[in-house]
């Protein structure tokens, strides 16, 4: 690896693991420009970027939950309890405003905690239509995108010029496309990066300015890596909406004889699944992006009768030739809990071995996971054709 590429990778890792340092650096180089906390998973960051802000997707920061316990019930998902804790302990103070466009009730609940604890901070909720099939959905979504644009303009004091918005769209598209290339390569067998490195690459792109991220990632790729092909069992990781699975868990998966070849994680393919059209009205294009994203990788938080996460999963497994699926379900994530039996049923019907792992914000039982993953690997191995 060249000095440039390893320094670039080190920077991405640093940003992914401690976004606050990057945020402070960015702030000192961009006096007077706001840093926005963006909550997953649907907010069009391009609008905020075009207004000169740094839109940072708030990360689960892996600190133990202390004061947050007094704000949200213990049976809220780890990500939302962590958000409440970040706010209560001042770790959220790096942000100037909070913007979200979503409809998971737990996320709305945690945003309400932010609003209550920081009454002088703007905490905006853009209600993008969740029911995607309705004839009036496109109109509703496009009205909300215009509304979000107006909110961003009012908050930043900067107009979102259409030309600038197109530039921002282009910048995010380029960054997404580059990450997608890595994911595609992995699925076709050339795993240039392990799952932890890929997660760092993706997490840092959720935090950084896209132009800067793209430049660093390009540097990283100056040194092409090729993985050694081995006979580990190829697995697809599914789920983990909103926040990243623990790095230790990804390591245990790979240590247990599995190689991750694809995923539909938010800190994975889901995040980069869809580009925004660069022609036509850019605000309309953001509305279409929202709708198309749910078709590219269906999300259990949306209501859409004619697309299925389970169907997507079986197709993805065929494309990547994954031999097994590991469902990573954050404890208490209702959209995932509701959908899980459909996933299980469909994979069973397709004869694809699977394993459900329920993750927690703290204290995940890695050793018991290891045993279960090894068993899955064994099962998958036994299904391999025997060459005589």
């Amino acid at each position, binding site marked *: 690896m060249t000095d440039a590429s390893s320094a670039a990778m080190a920077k991405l890792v640093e940003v992914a693991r401690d976004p606050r340092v990057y945020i402070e650096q960015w702030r000192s180089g961009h006096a007077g420009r706001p840093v926005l906390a963006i909550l997953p998973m649907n907010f069009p960051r391009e609008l905020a970027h075009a207004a000169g802000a740094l839109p940072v997707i708030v990360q689960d920061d892996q600190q133990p939950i202390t004061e947050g316990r007094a704000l949200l*019930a213990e049976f809220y998902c780890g990500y939302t309890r962590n958000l409440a804790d970040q706010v209560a302990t001042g770790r959220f103070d790096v942000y100037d405003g909070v913007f979200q466009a979503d409809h998971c009730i737990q996320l709305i609940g945690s945003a309400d905690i932010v609003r209550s604890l920081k009454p002088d901070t703007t905490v905006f909720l853009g209600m993008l239509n969740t029911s995607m099939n309705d004839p009036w959905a496109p109109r509703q979504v496009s009205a909300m995108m215009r509304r979000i644009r107006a909110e961003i303009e009012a908050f930043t004091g900067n107009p979102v010029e259409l030309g600038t918005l197109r530039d921002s769209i282009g910048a995010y598209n380029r960054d997404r496309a580059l990450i997608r290339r890595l994911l595609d390569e992995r699925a076709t067998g050339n795993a240039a990066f392990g799952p932890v490195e890929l997660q760092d690459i993706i997490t840092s792109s959720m935090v950084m300015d896209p132009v800067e991220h793209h430049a660093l990632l390009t540097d990283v790729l100056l040194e092409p890596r090729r993985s050694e092909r081995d006979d580990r069992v190829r697995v697809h990781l599914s789920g983990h909406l909103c926040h990243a699975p623990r790095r230790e868990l990804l390591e245990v998966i790979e240590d247990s004889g599995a190689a991750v070849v694809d995923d539909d994680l938010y800190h994975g393919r889901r995040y980069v699944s869809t580009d925004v059209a660069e022609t036509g009205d850019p605000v309309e294009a953001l509305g279409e992006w929202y709708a198309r994203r749910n078709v590219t990788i269906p999300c259990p*938080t949306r209501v859409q009768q004619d697309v299925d996460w389970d169907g997507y999963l079986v197709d993805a497994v065929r494309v990547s030739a994954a031999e097994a699926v590991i469902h990573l379900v954050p404890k208490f994530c209702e959209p995932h809990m509701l*959908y*899980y039996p459909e996933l299980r049923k469909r994979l069973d019907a397709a004869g694809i071995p699977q394993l459900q792992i329920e993750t927690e914000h703290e204290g995940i039982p890695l050793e018991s996971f290891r045993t279960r993953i090894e068993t899955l690997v064994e099962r998958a191995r036994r299904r391999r054709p025997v060459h005589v």
Partner: protein
Amino acid sequence: MLETIEKPAEDKSNRLGITRVGGRLISEYWEDLFTARERGKKIVWYNGGALNPMFQAAGLAWCHGEAFAARLAAQRVEGPAQLAGAEYGYNAELCSYSRTHLGCSVLTLQGTEGDQTGVVGAHDQEVLAAKLPAPDFFVNNYAGCSTGQQWDGISYRVFGKKLPIFNISHPFLWGNRPDAGYLRGEEWEDASKFVAEQLRNLIEFLEQQTGRPFDHDALCESMTHIKRAAELRREGLALCKAKPAPATFWDWIASVAPINFLPGNQELVDYFAAVRDEISDRIDNGVSAVKDEKYRLYFDGIMNWNKLGFLSRKFAEHGVAVLAGRYIQNAFWQEPHLIDTSDPILGMAQHYLLCPTNHGAKTLEYLTLRDCEEYGLDGLVFHSTRTCRAFTGPQRLLAKAAQDKLGIPSIFFEGDVADASFYKDGILESRLVAMLEAIDVRRERGALPDGFSAIA
């Protein structure tokens, strides 16, 4: 760990007699539903806001998913449905209404193999004590809670994606704008119009499903009855501000089903008139709902349906009149003045939006503190409803606001809407006793703010 739940020593509760009539109406409704298909009726399964007047006007039979799950839990026969749900793969931490009802779907499908009677698996009928007919189509009307909305999307899949489904999107009343507030502001107006428009689309959908033109007059008539019933209900609720209280939260819980899904007709009006009259008579005759009422509390959380009678006795045993709650004062056609009976669609849309899980914490704080003051309450009990994140999300904020702004204490206890296993009696008992002692101490010191004077 299993806990032994002992019965309170003496039953000091004095529940309204009229709710037995409500119970009969509810039983008749379900019996009617179980035989609806035999009578040639189409059946709709729905969730969320009370769309029943629409279905009534369309000549349908309707089954409210939460109501059926609540009924099974209240009758303590939810087990087989939850087991079927668990076997199908639903995690025990998932909303117990949804997994009970989805479990019913699974049983329904198992029981209909080869025939179309649509009866929940015949072999399970005894334990289920119910015969839920399979749906002809679904309508989802869930405001506030994304789980409620997704649940029907999953029912649709469980039934093989063959049955039609109509989903209504409800904007969460978040209150971004400076003019936002309860029943006011641009957000409220816009959301009301948007939902009303979807209800008009629902009418078209119902016409397609039934093959008949929708009977708008029948809708107006049904809403006229519902409006009147809701007015009577509010009058009765207001009478409960009297000290000592003539009726309690638990009486109103017993009247949730009638206001939430029974047909809008004269019988419904008569029922709520009788509820109001019984309360009024009690005031005239000095009859109280709790023997030796000593404390007045607020109850926040969806009802723990397995424990309705038990909790009513338990609180009464401690001299507690539970009088108000988000689930009662701020739900179920609670603003009847919004209904224009000659054109009820907008007012209906507004009520659906007013679901108490569809407001930001700011509005909930306004409503909760208002009710605490109006009913002269000494404290709040939060039912930390284990699998309902929609209701529990703002509870800590509400407790803090009551403490900071009104100086009144709260306790939390764990339980669930339809899963008895989450209820911890020891926790409720010890926390309740501690709070009541604290209230006593403050009364002795005379430290309660205005409006919270001791009830001697």
